[in-house]
């Protein structure tokens, strides 16, 4: 049984079909990448999986059980959370408090139990130096880490990362990719939406390509990148050879 199974997922906004019968599965411990042009439905797909949007049709199964129609906090406690492309930290709270909230509510811990784990997570993501700062005061790369720290805090097994690596310099990108590999070692399953092909090719074991709300390709990264349809819809040129 796969960890996540998306079945015939449909979501429309008015006349726009953001998701049109999307099907795919994610195995436990795998890093899956989702690529596609802007407006392909990648973020919508994530929002439907975590419960922010209700699907119009189809189903989302997590460990074989449907999470469709559950509110986001229930889905989070079941084991799925996401990091947002546009970061929404709890602004006036400190970095540490942000992480504490995820621990306290995602895993239903007391404040005391959460303290030590929050420190551990911030240490791992290299944001411990700003833990007493308010989340308005830290740089964008750190805010992206904070987004990830919150996702880790919830204890979710499956983390959907929506462009968590966007806008980073090459060194930060390298660090980000290392963190993703480390998360896999720690047993997390990741689904990554990203435009930076270098990062996608560097960490993903499997790729799914969306275009206009439909899945147009799926498979090993190298195979997907040389697929003609993918090149026409998204890549524009051949970036790798088989």
């Amino acid at each position, binding site marked *: 049984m796969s960890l996540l199974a998306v079945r015939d997922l449909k979501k429309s906004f008015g006349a726009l079909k953001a998701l049109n019968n999307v099907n795919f599965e994610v195995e436990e411990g795998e890093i899956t990448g989702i690529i596609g042009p802007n407006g392909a439905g990648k973020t919508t797909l994530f929002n439907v999986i975590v419960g922010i949007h209700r699907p119009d049709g189809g189903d989302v199964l997590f460990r074989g059980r449907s999470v469709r129609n559950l509110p986001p*906090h229930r889905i989070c406690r079941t084991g799925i959370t996401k990091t947002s492309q546009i970061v929404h930290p709890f602004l006036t709270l400190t970095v540490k408090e942000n992480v504490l909230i995820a621990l306290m509510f995602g895993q239903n811990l007391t404040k005391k139990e959460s303290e030590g784990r929050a420190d551990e997570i911030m240490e791992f993501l290299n944001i411990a130096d700003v833990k007493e700062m308010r989340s308005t005061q830290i740089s964008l790369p750190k805010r992206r880490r904070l987004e990830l720290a919150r996702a880790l805090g919830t204890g979710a097994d499956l983390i959907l990362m929506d462009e968590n690596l966007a806008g980073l310099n090459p060194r930060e990108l390298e660090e980000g990719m290392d963190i993703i590999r480390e998360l896999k070692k720690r047993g997390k399953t990741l689904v990554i939406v990203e435009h930076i092909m270098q990062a996608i090719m560097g960490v993903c074991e499997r790729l799914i390509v969306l275009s206009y709300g439909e899945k147009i390709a799926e498979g090993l990264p190298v195979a997907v990148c040389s697929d003609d349809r993918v090149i026409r819809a998204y890549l524009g040129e051949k970036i790798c050879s088989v």
Partner: protein
Amino acid sequence: MRKHAVWLAVFFALLLVPAFKLEGYYYRTLSMIFLWIGLASAWNLTSGFTGYIDFGAVAYFGIGNYATALSMTKAGVPFFPAIMISGLLSGMVALFIGRYTMKLRGAYFGIATLAFAEAASQIVLEFDRTFHVTIFEGSHGITLPIAHDETFFYYTFLIVAALIVFIAFLTDRNKFGYALKAIKEAENSAELAGIDTQRCKVSVYAVTGVMIGVLGGINAYWLTYISPLDVFSVTHTIHMIIMALFGGIGTVFGPVIGAVVLSLANETLGARLLYTYLLMLGVILVVVVIFLPGGFIGLLSFRRFRK
């Protein structure tokens, strides 16, 4: 920590005030200030902490007033059980109203709660005439028995207000409080972090309802005469909002400071400068909102923000 010790000292000092056998006027003024501390703090617990600005908080005040007045005059319930009934009833109504209104965001929540409070006022005003009964007594209002001296209300208001501030103080630090603040900052993120936002919002709204209801109950017995247009007046809600904003919305002691300063201003300036007072208040409020978004208390903790 020292700052909190000051507040505790103020509370104990206030407990001793009646030993000086002051004139009735001072007790009445202080009682009024305690009432407003309680109301502003209770309002702030929902609206300040979660950011859902409630424009209909007076509904729970009115319900509290009428629940106590009716229980005491029609059913002969003693005062303390009567204010419990007020709290319970207001809390239950808040639970019901919150279930629906708390799904609305921003201005829509404000509009819905304002409409509810106005509707509640009209129901109490017109119920008897419409259904040919005598329950609420419409615009005649209800007169309650006079049985206690000013120190009785002084203590009742002081202890209830202190209790409300203490609950806000605890909430500011506990897990539930973090949920409320997370909702205020980014509601979707709060959901994604596993917070049952709807449940938290409705719960805190009900708690606020209980608090305001109890204060309303005491108010009815204190004033001995209530009428719908007085106790359901939208100006009460506006006062709660202004006091919290002035002192520092979303903080524990901001509404306390706001309530003290504005009640005193109302008492002294309001009587002397009847026409210009409200104008001045408006100007002061605009200045506070523009230059001190953290309220008066933001000035005191300025260092913390600058770090």
